[in-house]
Structures are given as structure tokens and as C-alpha cells.
């Protein structure tokens, strides 16, 4: 039984039909790499999975939590779905530790002491325990993104959404973030990543999903698809990236 099921998803931005019937099942522990040109709908698809975008038709199910068009109570779903953003979006007024603790205390009502223990564990995992009392603006971009990952992990999500999480980083900082993601994948975390890092997608991904004009144009094993794309659009896309 799939952990994430997406059925017949449609979305418009005004008159622009951006998702034209998406069906996608994701098994527990799978790493999905969503690729495609800008405007292909890949980021929008990712953002609908935790309710940051609404949709008009279809259904999303994550670990038994159902999401329908125009649902407004997203609290249960969002506790199971973590998200990492391109721009990190750390809370600048809170210390690194407080950033990681906030939702566990406010949403899960975990006590101060236990929340701090969880935060320290997660920061240790991303290699930033010593930055517990630092503030976001004292960290490099790569460090901020690793804190953002720790912040999402502290909620113990069943699935983690990554929206171009290395695109805003200087090239020399990309690897430290990818290394953390790689560890998570190895530990069996379910990951859905919109990414431009094709080598990473090929190495770590279990399934490649190529989006084109609001549809899943082609999907399958990354190694095979990269070596042998079945459609001219994917071949074209891979050619333009390399």
C-alpha cells in the first residue's frame, strides 16, 4: 500500500491549467526526483501535497490522511508532511535551537525539556549541534538549509518535500546539503524532491518523474531513463541540462 497516493489532480492558476490530471503513487522509503522545465508544474505539484496550493479536482492521500479540493483543515496532514524550501525560510527572530523547537512545542505540545532534546538530536544529525544558540543570519546558506532540514525532521514527518533546496546555494555549499539528504534516504525516509541536480537524482533517486506541460510525461528508473529516454521531450530536456 502506497504511502502517498495522488489521483486525478487538476489545478488552474486563473485560466492557466497547470496540473492536468496527475496520478502518482509513492511507496514508503522511496526517493522521488521530480524534474522538468520551469512552468512544467513540478513545484506546484509538490506544494499541493502539503496544502500550500489548493486544487480543484482529484484527491491526495498521505498515510491515511485525505486531502480534497478546498479543504481548509490541513493540520493533521501537515504533521505528516515536512517541507524544505529553496530560500530556507528560517525564522530570523529565533535562535537555531528555537527554530527547531517551535513547532514541536506549539503544535505537538511537547514540553520545553523534551523539545530541546529532540532539537539537539536533529541538529546533531545535520552536523550543526554547536550552532544551537546561533541565529540564522550568523550561518552560511548551506548551514541554514541544514537547520531547515532539522526543523522539518523534528516533527517526525512520514514524508519530506524538498523544493529545489540547493538552487539558492553557492556551488561550494551544495554538497553539504546533499550529503544530509543522502543520509536521510539511506535511513529510509520517503523523499519527494524537485531538483536540478541530475547527477544526484540518478545516484540517490528510486524513481524519476519527468513533468511536461502539467502532465507526468514519463517516469521510471532514473538510471534507465537517463540512459535511454523514451520520449523526445525528455531526451531534449536531458540534453539541455548537460
Amino acid at each position, binding site marked *: 500500500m502506497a504511502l502517498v497516493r495522488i489521483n486525478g489532480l487538476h489545478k488552474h492558476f486563473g485560466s492557466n491549467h497547470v496540473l492536468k490530471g496527475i496520478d502518482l503513487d509513492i511507496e514508503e522509503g522511496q526517493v522521488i526526483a521530480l524534474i522538468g522545465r520551469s512552468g512544467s508544474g513540478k513545484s506546484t505539484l509538490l506544494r499541493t501535497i*502539503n*496544502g*500550500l496550493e489548493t486544487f480543484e479536482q482529484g484527491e491526495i492521500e498521505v498515510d491515511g490522511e485525505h486531502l480534497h479540493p478546498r479543504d481548509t483543515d*490541513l*493540520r493533521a496532514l*501537515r*504533521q505528516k*508532511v*515536512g*517541507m524544505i*524550501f529553496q*530560500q530556507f*525560510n*528560517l*525564522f*530570523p*527572530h*529565533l*535562535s537555531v535551537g528555537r527554530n527547531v523547537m*517551535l*513547532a514541536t512545542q*506549539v*503544535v505537538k505540545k511537547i514540553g520545553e525539556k523534551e523539545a530541546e532534546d529532540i532539537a539537539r538530536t536533529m541538529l546533531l544529525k545535520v552536523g550543526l549541534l554547536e550552532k544551537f544558540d546561533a*541565529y*540564522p*543570519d550568523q550561518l552560511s546558506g548551506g548551514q541554514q538549509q541544514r537547520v*531547515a532540514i532539522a*526543523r*522539518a525532521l523534528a*516533527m517526525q514527518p512520514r514524508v519530506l*518535500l524538498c523544493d529545489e533546496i540547493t538552487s539558492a546555494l553557492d556551488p561550494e555549499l551544495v554538497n553539504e546539503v546533499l550529503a544530509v539528504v543522502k543520509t536521510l534516504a539511506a535511513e529510509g525516509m520517503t523523499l519527494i524532491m524537485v531538483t536540478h541536480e541530475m547527477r544526484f537524482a540518478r545516484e540517490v533517486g528510486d524513481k524519476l518523474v519527468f513533468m511536461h506541460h502539467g502532465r507526468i510525461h514519463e517516469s521510471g528508473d532514473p538510471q534507465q531513463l537517463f540512459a535511454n529516454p523514451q520520449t523526445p521531450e525528455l531526451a531534449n530536456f536531458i540534453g539541455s541540462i548537460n
Partner: protein
Amino acid sequence: MNDISTWDIVRNLLDGALWTIGLSLTAFVLGGIAGLALLFARIAKNPIPRRLAQGYIEVFQGTPLLMQLFMIFFGSSLLGLEISPWIAAALGLTLFTSAYLGEIWRGCVESVPKGQWEASASLALTHFEQMRHVILPQALRIAIAPTVGFSVQVVKGTAVTSIIGFVELTKTGSMLANATFQPFMVFGCVALGYFALCYPLSAYSRYLERNIHGSRAH
């Protein structure tokens, strides 16, 4: 009328200035509380409070303060309430202040980047929790400089209440000018009095404005 000495003038003006300060503080505190309510109405998800707050703000920002004071003064007597100039002045200036502060603060809330809303939403915080823990603490920091800056407008606004008979600095000045036949000196002193109240606030607001960019966000 030569029995009114310069000292008498200054002493009377200082008395008037105390009322100006009292009225300014009252309007600023009460207007701030009402402005906070307006802010929440203005950014509510429900469109009804949002439109009501918007209408309120447009009316108070689109009509003269003097007319607002007249409406309160004569409107209340229509309701059979004989209110003193002090009450009318405090009420009028409070409403005026709340409209401007509500709008200033809304601007501050909206200047918090959208990513902060999205990040806190994806952590399953409710709308109220997002405001309380993530948005308002950041908006507050942005809001301090323009709020202090607006306090200057409140102090200057109190001068208009002299027209409905509230005896503050300007009204005291008018009466002294009539009694002493020295309007140049009296109104010069009145202007200096306002300057002494307002300039420190303006300068402090500018100082905060400059430092907000250089300082850390915490």
C-alpha cells in the same frame, strides 16, 4: 494688559502643554489598542471584518480631523449626551489614531516575507499560532520606527482640538495672544513648545529607521 509678564505667559503655556501631552498619550494608547483590533480585522481570513476595517480606515484617512471632531461633538449631543471638549477630543483623536496605526501595522505584517507564512504553515501551525510565534514578532520589529514617527502626527493633531474648545497648548496660546497683544511672541513660543515635543520623536524614529537595516533580526 501689561500686568501679564513673560513668566506668566510661559507658565500658562506650560500648563497647556501638559494637557497636550495628556491628550497625546491618551489618544496614542487607546488608539493603539483599537488599531491592533483593526489590524486583526484587516488581515482576517473572513472578508466581512476585512471590508469593515478597510471602510473605517478609508473614512478616517479621507476626511479632515476637524470634521471628525465636529461630528463627534454634535453627534453626541444629538444622542442626548453632553460630552465635554476633553472627552470629544480624546475620542476623536483616538479614532483618528487607530485608523492610521491599523494601516501602518498592516503594512508591517504584509512586509514579512511570504516564505515565513509558508514555512510555518508547513510545520502545521494554525493561523493564530503563525501570527503569534512567527509573523507578529517580526512585524513588531519593523513597526517600531513608523509607529514612533506617527506619534508626531498625533501630537500635532491635538492642536486641532483647540477648535472645539479643548484648552491645550494652542488654545492657551490663542487666549494669551488676545490678552497680551503679543501674538508673534506667544505663537512663537507655542511653536517652540510643539517642536520640543515632536523633534525628539522624529529624530528617534529616524534613528530606529537607520538602525533596523544594520541590526540583527533578534
